């Protein structure tokens, strides 16, 4: 199995953007557990239906960290609806692909984002 990461993955992994936790977040999503070996936490700040701040903290492998970083970059500034429309494929494409056998990991970060949005929407009701 080929295990070569794209330049983009390595870039995102070694210089991740939006690292942190928003203390007064409007929504928080977290996936994974120490048993699984991957935990992704995404917090968002929403204004006028737009994600105007987003941060992540991730415990996990190269793909977990690079996809977390990429998902936050992609979601920042997007309308809630647009962010919900993001797909696994969008994330993988933005990273110029993932090695075979590693593509399953990519969904976790997106899942954390969608949980954060769901958390925000729940609080709106």
């Amino acid at each position, binding site marked *: 199995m080929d295990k070569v990461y794209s330049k983009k993955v390595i870039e995102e992994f070694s210089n991740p953007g939006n690292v942190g936790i928003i203390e007064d977040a409007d929504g928080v999503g977290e996936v994974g557990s120490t048993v699984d070996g*991957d935990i992704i936490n995404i917090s968002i700040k929403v204004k006028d239906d737009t994600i105007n701040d987003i941060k992540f903290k991730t415990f996990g492998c190269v793909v977990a*960290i690079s996809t977390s970083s990429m998902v936050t970059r992609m979601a920042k500034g997007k309308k809630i609806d647009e962010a919900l429309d993001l797909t696994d494929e969008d994330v993988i494409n933005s990273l110029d692909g993932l090695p075979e056998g590693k593509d399953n990991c990519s969904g976790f970060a997106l899942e954390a984002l969608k949980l954060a949005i769901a958390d925000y929407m729940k609080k709106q009701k």
Partner: protein
Amino acid sequence: MDHSATTPVDPLVVGAMLPYFSDMFGNSSSLHSFGREAGEALVKARKEVADGIGAMPEEIIFTSGGTESDNLAILGSMPQNTDKKHVITSVIEHPAVLNTCKFLQSQGHEVTYISVDPGGVVDLEKIESSIQDNTMLITVMHANNEVGTIQPIMDIAQIAKENDILLHTDAVQTIGKLPVNVDTLGVDMLSLSSHKIHGPKGVGALYVRKGTNIHPTVFGGNHEGGLRSGTENIPGIVGLGKAMALAGERLDKDSKHMQHMRDSLIDKVLGSMDGVRLNGHATQRLPNNVNLSFKNVEGESMLMLLDMEEIAVSTGSACSSGSQNVSTVLKALNLEDEYIHGSLRISLGRENTIEEIDSLFNILRSTVERLRSISPLEGR
């Protein structure tokens, strides 16, 4: 810093091998002078390997490496067309042993996998109590490739002898690092590999004590006493012989040097970093093995950041297909969840220096700090 994976070939070994690719390319089975040259090279290499482990030359079978040696020892000692037989091994063996044992099970044989204590040492009492009337073989590695734990082979040999059972050990990780003598250890078979001791890849040997009845698993022109057919890999075998001779000469010096670096690194890490544990045994440990687990960080991520600093290490916690694939060895040691995913194996070699250890330590510390700063688990 990943010498348990493989080692660079010693220039003296390369020098010994070179003539056998071109000038002396003969087939040792040929009767003419070219064949005789190859035959003489085989005799010399066989003696060098035998001398290295206190064996007789006729007890050495050249193979393609440690994996084939393990396969031949296990499959070759199982009688064919008889009642089902029983093998005792440990849960922390190399895949070359574990997967061969699994194959035996698929063929109707029985295998007992002995557990290990938290330091990675096999349970001798369990070995003893697992013995059945049809137990043919005990196979336990001399030292573990991941966590470096040295197994009590002499004690296991005592048990094997009392019960008239064959004993095989995989000594791939111990040659050149510990004294290895087949009589002192009391083994009937022993596997060794060339590329772990600064020899070429693709060659190894199995020691089979005189009088031990094993059958071949590769058939052909009856090379290697009929136990391993196929025209001998003369350059490779010459390289293995030279590497064994050098390993023997350098054993004291090299093992002391590696142990000094090992202890220095372990002391530094355990003494100045939080949330770290040493995997494996505190003292019964290969002189070149450091296996650490860091809390709240993941192995592959550490490995990649170290790789960017041109430091090559390995991890037992490689992630694949969205679920962490933790090594069976680390699982067997019963590490806590927060530690099991953050393992790092640093395996030193004779050409490493104490200055490199200092530099490794500094880079390792900043790598762990960096990953912890983005880990949601920190501070929880």
